[in-house]
Each structure stands twice: as C-alpha cells, then as structure tokens.
C-alpha cells in the first residue's frame, strides 16, 4: 500500500470531523489503494457500514483534504450480508453467476478485501460469511462465464463477416479471461484497470502477459482476422481452461417469441414486443424470410444461398437482426449468447407513414425501417384506411345514382362527404386515424398536416378551398365531380405504395384491396388493437364486387 495505515487513519479522523456515521456503524478503507495498487492521484475510499438499512444516497460524499479526494460511501450491513449469503449458497451455479451484476461484484470485492478501521466485530461478522478465498474462486468462475460468452459472440461476429465488431468482443473476452486467471491466483479485484499488474503480481508467465498485451492492444497487424481470433481463443483457453472452437457452425439462431412477422400484401412487417412496427425490404427482407432457427449458422447460410442466391453481406444482415433484438444467437443450441451491443434504429419520419399495404418505404432509407407510429395505432389507421376507401366507393355509387335521377341536393351532399373522407384518409396515412364523429375534420387536417412536405403540391389548398357549390343541373354536377376526382387521385397517390394499384377500377384490384383488408385484420387481431372491425367486416362481407360498378 502506498500509504501507511496511520496516515489512512489520520485521513479518516479528518473525514469524521465532516461526517457523522450513525451509532454502531463500522468503517473500512477500500478500493485501489487498499488493494495495493493506486497512485498519488487515486481516491481515498471509505465505506461506512451501517447496522440498519438507512436509505442513504448511492452517490458518494466527496471531501478534499491534504491534496486528496476522499470519497465516503454508505452500505447497510443487512444488504451486504444478504448478498454474501446468496453468493455463498449459489457459488457453483453458472446461471446465477451469469446474472450477477458487475456493480454488485465490485462492491462486495472492495468490502471483503478492505482494511477495517472501526467496529471490527460488526465488519468481521459480515466478512466471515464468505471467505476471500471462496470469493476469489467464485469471481474467477464469474469472469470465466463472461469471457466465454463474449468470445462465443466474437466467433459469431467474425464468422458472419462483422470483423470490426468481432475484434472488440475478442478484446472484451480475453481481458475477462485474464481476470478469471488472476482471480484464481488470489487477484479478485473486479475493475479491469489494474489487470496487467494483477497478472504480474499473480506471477503469470511473462510470455503469456506479452501475448495478452499484443492481442489486447491489437499490436500485431500481420495477423488475419481469423488468426487473431484463433490466437485469442487459445489464450483464453490457457486462462480459463475452456476451449471455444472458432466454428461458426456452433452458433445457432434462436427465435424470439415476441417478434412476429406479418405480410401486408407482399410487404413484410415485423412487430417487436407488440409495440414497434418495422418494414423489412430488399436483401434484409429476403434473408429474414429464409432464416432457419435452431440450425447451425453454416447451414443457415447455405440454405439462404440455395433459396435466394448470393446476397452481399448476408452475415452482416443477420448480425443486424440480432442487434435489433429480432433474433437471438445461441451456442450449440443451448444457452443464449446474451451479449451484443443491442441498438435501435431511428424511426422513419418526415412524410406520411401508411399506405394500403403497410408502411411507406423511404426509397433512400435502410432495408429495415422503424415506424414512429406505435403498433396499435398503426393497425387501426391501416384498417381505417381501407375501410374509408370502401366507404368512398359506396359514396360514388350513391352519387351516380343521384346524378342519374337528377337529385341535385343528394349529388352535392355526396361530393361534400367525399372530401371529408379524403381528410380522414390523409390523417390515417399519418397514423392519426380519427374516430367519428368528425365535424371538425378540416380543422384537424390543417392543424396536423399543414407543414408536411407532401402537401407542397397544393393538395391541402384544394381540399380546404373545396366549397360546395349549389348544384342545379347535370353540367354543374359533372363539373364538381371532375374536381373531386382530381383531388381523389392526388390523395390516393399519397396513401398508395407503388406496388399497389392506384384505383379500384377492376375486379382484380378490388380483390387485392379485400385481401389487404384481411391482412390488416389479421395483424390487428394479434395486437388487440381497436379497429372499426364490425363495420369493416360487414362491408367486407358484402363487398365482393366494386360497389359503384355494381
């Protein structure tokens, strides 16, 4: 230790002029310096062990004295005792080890290896629950489990062509492995900053330390990615005794139950955790549709190649799916590899979201797009979109009937209704499906959509300036009808993906619309979303032919 025990006690005396521990508490000195590492710049760490759980703040109290930064933390004896007893009980259980948090291990190690300054009986009664030797063995196993998992993940990443990421995980894996070896040799300090010192103090072979340094700092640039990994795995085996083959075939894809795949027409939509909707297209969509679960990764890659041909970066696509938490990896089909920088993609924003056949693809965007509209609203809006379109078709039918019979007020009413439906369609397309009654739908449209890019084409003005004129004859009716048709065409341009026909003028198109409606119903049934299903179902049930052709 760089300071004498007396000096530490002096620092404590000063600290106690500023801090008053509760009666019956004990105080220990812990951390880097207590561990025999540290330097003049290191903190002085005191831990006050209170008899009862006093609900003290987690953040340390900081005092500056004699050019030193003194940190004072609190911990309840009951908490420490419970944690140590649990550890003592489960020290050989890998599953429990895997779940132990680094923070917990860190706090326990610091305490167990601390220098007792006051109330020795209390402190010893806690320390005696688990000897430091036993704790060190447990720590070694804990590091081993972590090392193995990281390296297995590295094997997966490397094999799948994510060599950059793989390197990070290789380094993460070998340092955990080195820590496992160190803990086996009495060096159980958890933080990694003193790892090399720990190896030296544990009398590790000098050549091994050299190899470790070379690999950890990636200083031998002549190594290929595979050689680098192989050497790292050999070193890890030396440290932990665990042999991990560099074999992608050991990696399998595990299904995640709360990830489901739905087709809206031919468009693949994935729902994650019943919350998020993603659109998968391009190569990613193809790979997604050809994933095999519980099958060795090499076989999965072969299968994908066989069924859809050569795909660039297929491995990287699979890694991306794992990182997006749409699949898991396992080693040998058994345990899940529970590491990986799990990330998310920013939602696609800036234009309308929904068309008849699902999320609108951003042509310049990624193969996976996350909708900013949560899934229940997404499905509700989607089914409303189809439903309102069917209503529009019925409204046309009414209009033509009235036109034929020269019922001018009906013509006028129907056309005015039509434009209100257009407002609803536009709102639905943005995932803002309104619930009837819709007396102020125009106002809503202005409020929500006026600054949206897609409306630069004056569509909004056309809708808003659509003031019904009084129809007195067939010419006036047809004139107004032409105007409404122009608006309808523009509206449908917005609510239609390229793949879907722009009108309902043929039986085939109508059938496609019906199929899509059922696709939406299917997805809505999964997320239990509210949707105008009864009305929609009624219409769907009677609507085999296009109503106005009728």
């Amino acid at each position: 230790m760089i300071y004498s025990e007396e000096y530490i006690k002096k620092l404590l005396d000063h600290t106690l002029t500023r801090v008053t521990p509760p009666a019956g508490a004990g105080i220990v000195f812990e951390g880097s310096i207590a561990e025999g590492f540290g330097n003049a710049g290191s903190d002085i760490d005191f831990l006050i062990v209170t008899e009862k759980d006093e609900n003290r703040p987690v953040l340390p109290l900081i005092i500056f004295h004699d050019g030193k930064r003194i940190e004072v933390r609190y911990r309840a004896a009951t908490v420490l005792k419970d944690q140590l007893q649990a550890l003592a009980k489960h020290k050989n259980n890998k599953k429990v080890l895997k779940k132990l948090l680094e923070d917990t291990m860190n706090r326990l190690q610091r305490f167990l290896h601390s220098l007792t300054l006051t109330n020795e009986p209390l402190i010893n009664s806690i320390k005696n629950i688990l000897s430091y030797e036993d704790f060190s063995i447990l720590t070694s196993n804990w590091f081993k489990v972590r090392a193995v998992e990281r390296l297995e993940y590295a094997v997966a990443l490397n094999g799948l062509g994510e060599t950059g990421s793989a390197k990070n995980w290789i380094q993460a894996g070998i340092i955990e492995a080195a820590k496992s070896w160190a803990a086996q040799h009495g060096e159980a300090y958890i933080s990694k900053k003193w790892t090399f010192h720990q190896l030296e103090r544990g009398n590790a072979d000098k050549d091994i330390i050299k190899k470790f340094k070379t690999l950890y700092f990636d200083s031998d640039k002549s190594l290929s990615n595979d050689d680098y990994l192989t050497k790292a795995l050999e070193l890890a085996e030396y440290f932990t005794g665990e042999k991990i083959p560099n074999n992608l075939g050991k990696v399998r894809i595990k299904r995640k139950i709360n990830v489901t795949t739905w087709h809206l027409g031919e468009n693949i939509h994935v729902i994650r955790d019943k919350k998020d909707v993603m659109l998968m297209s391009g190569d990613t969509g193809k790979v997604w549709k050809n994933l095999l679960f519980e099958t060795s990764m090499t076989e999965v890659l072969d299968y994908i190649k066989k069924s859809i041909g050569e795909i660039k970066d297929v491995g990287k696509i699979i890694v991306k799916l794992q990182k997006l938490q749409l699949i898991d990896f396992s080693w040998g089909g058994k345990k899940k590899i529970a590491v990986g920088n799990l990330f998310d993609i920013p939602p696609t924003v800036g234009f309308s979201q929904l068309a008849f056949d699902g999320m609108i693809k951003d042509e310049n965007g990624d193969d996976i797009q996350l909708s900013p509209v949560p899934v229940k609203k997404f499905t509700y809006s989607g089914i409303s979109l189809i439903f309102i379109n069917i209503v529009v078709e019925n409204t046309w039918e009414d209009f033509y009937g009235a036109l034929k019979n020269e019922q001018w007020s009906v013509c006028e009413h129907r056309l005015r209704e039509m434009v209100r439906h257009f407002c609803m369609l536009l709102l639905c397309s943005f995932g803002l499906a309104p619930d009837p009654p819709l007396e102020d739908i125009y106002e809503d449209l202005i409020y929500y959509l006026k600054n949206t890019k897609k409306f630069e084409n004056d569509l909004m003005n056309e809708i808003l300036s659509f003031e019904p004129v009084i129809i007195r004859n067939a010419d006036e009716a047809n004139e107004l009808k032409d105007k409404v048709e122009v608006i309808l065409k523009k509206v449908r341009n917005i609510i239609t993906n390229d793949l879907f026909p722009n009108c309902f003028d043929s039986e085939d198109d109508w059938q496609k619309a019906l199929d899509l409606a059922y696709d939406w119903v299917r997805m809505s049934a999964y997320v239990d979303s509210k949707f105008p299903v009864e009305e929609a179902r009624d219409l769907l049930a009677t609507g085999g032919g296009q109503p106005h052709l009728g």
Partner: protein
Amino acid sequence: MKIFLTGASGGVGTETTFELSQKGHEVFALIHRKKELIRYNRKKIIMEEKPLKESKPSDVIALKGDISKKKLGLSDEIYTEIQDSVDLIIHLAARVEFGREDEYYTPVNVDGTRHVLELANSGKRKIPLLYVSTAYISGETTGLFKESQFDVNQHFTVSYEKSKFKAETLVREALDINNQIVILRPSIVVGAAKNGATRAFKTIYPILRVFCGGMVRSLPGEYNALLNLIPVDYVSNSIVQLAENMSKFYGRTFHIVNDKSITTRDLSNILAEYPSFYVPRYISPVKFNIDSLEKQERRYYELVVYPYISYFKRRVEFSNEELKKAIDMPKNIDGITILRRVLNYCLKIGYVGRPAEITLDDYRDMANDEKFNKIKEGE
C-alpha cells in the same frame, strides 16, 4: 396381460404397443402393411416372429391382417387362438386422413369395428374391449361436449367423423351383449409432449405445411374457432392406464383432450413468430370465394385445407373431468405450447419452413412421412 391391438403401426398404436410391452404385457399387434414399428423418437420396436403360444412377457408379436376383412384377414387358427387367449382387445385401427368420400372410411372404420366386435363377442367368452374413438364424433356441435354425451343430433360435414360416429354406435350397441367395453376419445393427436416429435404427419400437419409455406394464403375461417391438440404420448399413456384397470371402467367413455384448446387466432399468431412462415388470412366464410385463389393455391386449398375447413369455424370444447378422476393424468401442457413444439420439430426436420428444399412431389403427397423418417434415430 395378453393384449390384441389393432392399428399398431399408427402413431398412437406404436406408442401404445411400446408402453404396454415396457410394462411386461404381451402384445399381439395387428399390422396391415408396415413391416416395422417406429416410435416418434425414431426408435424401432423389436417384434418377435413366433407362434402366439410361445409368447413371453414384453413380447410384441406382429400379426399380418386386414380389419376390413372378415376375421380380420387372419387364419382361423390364429383367430381362434386370439379369442381363447387374450385378456383385452385394444381397437385403434382407423383411416384418419380427411377429404375422402364415405366409401373410403366405411370398410376400415365401420366394418373394421364390426369385425373387431365379432372377435370380442363371438368366442367361448366375451373379451374386454378398449375402443379408441375420436372426440370429434361431436361433429358440428357447438359449446361444451361432455364425455357422457354421444348422440346429440349432431350434423356431420366430415366423412371421417361420420364414420367414427357410426363405429362408436356399433360399439355402444354391443354393450348389450358385452358390458366389458371402455371408449376413449382423443382430440387432434400431435407429436410428443416434450418436443413435438412425430413420425406420423397426418391430421393437422399437412395444413401447417401449406400454411407455413404460403401455398394457401386465404381460407374461409373465423378467429375464434377452437382446435384441441393432444400429444401422442398422452393418448398412449391414458390407453395403458385404462387397459390396466379395465374392470373399474366398464361401460364408460372418456375424453383424452387438452384442458386448453387453441383458437384459430392463436394459430395465426404463433405462425407469425416464425419469419419464414406465412400466416393465412381467415376470410369471412360467407364471403370466401374460391375463384379468387390463384390456380396453384386453389389446388392446395382443395387438396389439403378444404377437407378440414369446418375446423376453422367450429367452437366446441371437450370436458375431460371423468378421465381426470379415473387415471393419473400427466400435467397438462397448454395447446399453444404444444403447437410451438410441433412447429419447432417440423422446422428442425425440414417438414415446414424450408420451401427451397421441399419438392412439388413432397407437396403432392402431404401425408408422406417417409422422407422425414430417414432422419437418424435419436435426432
């Protein structure tokens, strides 16, 4: 016990034969075509070829026969020997694939049962009979169907069910002359409870296959129809327990069914858990128009899905209170879990989910399980 068992080569028959033999019973197994009995886990059951007289405990002796024929196609000598020696008949043999005309089922399911009843009742003494029917003799009944119920004026749209109803009628009528009869009605029998393993890709399997592969993407159906799935080993286990305690249950009927049916909506949701699968859309039955299907899809629909179509509308639940009181039931595994296991198994062996590896010929013969039985033992 010496037990004569029909339908030994079927999924339930093989498991039952195995379990009975494990318990030291002597099984005289009537086999129509197959030369060997292979369990769901691909392990073979060793069969003896020797005269019935020489059988020893745990022996399985294969008897080649045909239940559609008088005296089950057996020689007079063997027929009489069975009548004289066996302690119990278990009648499992039936044609279970759907989509055929009445004439297809009658010889095996109805006449076959008549022939088995003759075997049980025409010898020097009456032989106890455990008859395996189906819970779906309920036909198009809606609501709860109890073990005590049989003829409720149900209507049939599936010839298989109608034939089983007729057969059960014969068995019930026979109670007048032989009261040593027990009836067991399983629901839809699927793979083993623990891992969904099977070697009989019948009942729901061909449907799962065409759904998963996207061969049929629309069908008339409701989201709240009910399907009751029961693992094959649960059925065989119940048969064995009843067989060993027959005299306690003479004259009674039991359901071996899942406590928890799945809905057709569950089916849809579970299929969606597998990215490579397609999920069928259920079209309102009044609206479904077969002409809207593409030519190829229509063929698959007519061939594979149509025979089972009423299952996508029915809402029938089966009670199993009587069986629960009668035997030690293994812990129920809910239908959703069973379905996941069934799908995982099918996926693992390539029965579903690998369209690139399934040929058109495979699809033509949906119930052909040979290809998938080539997988090595224990896999």
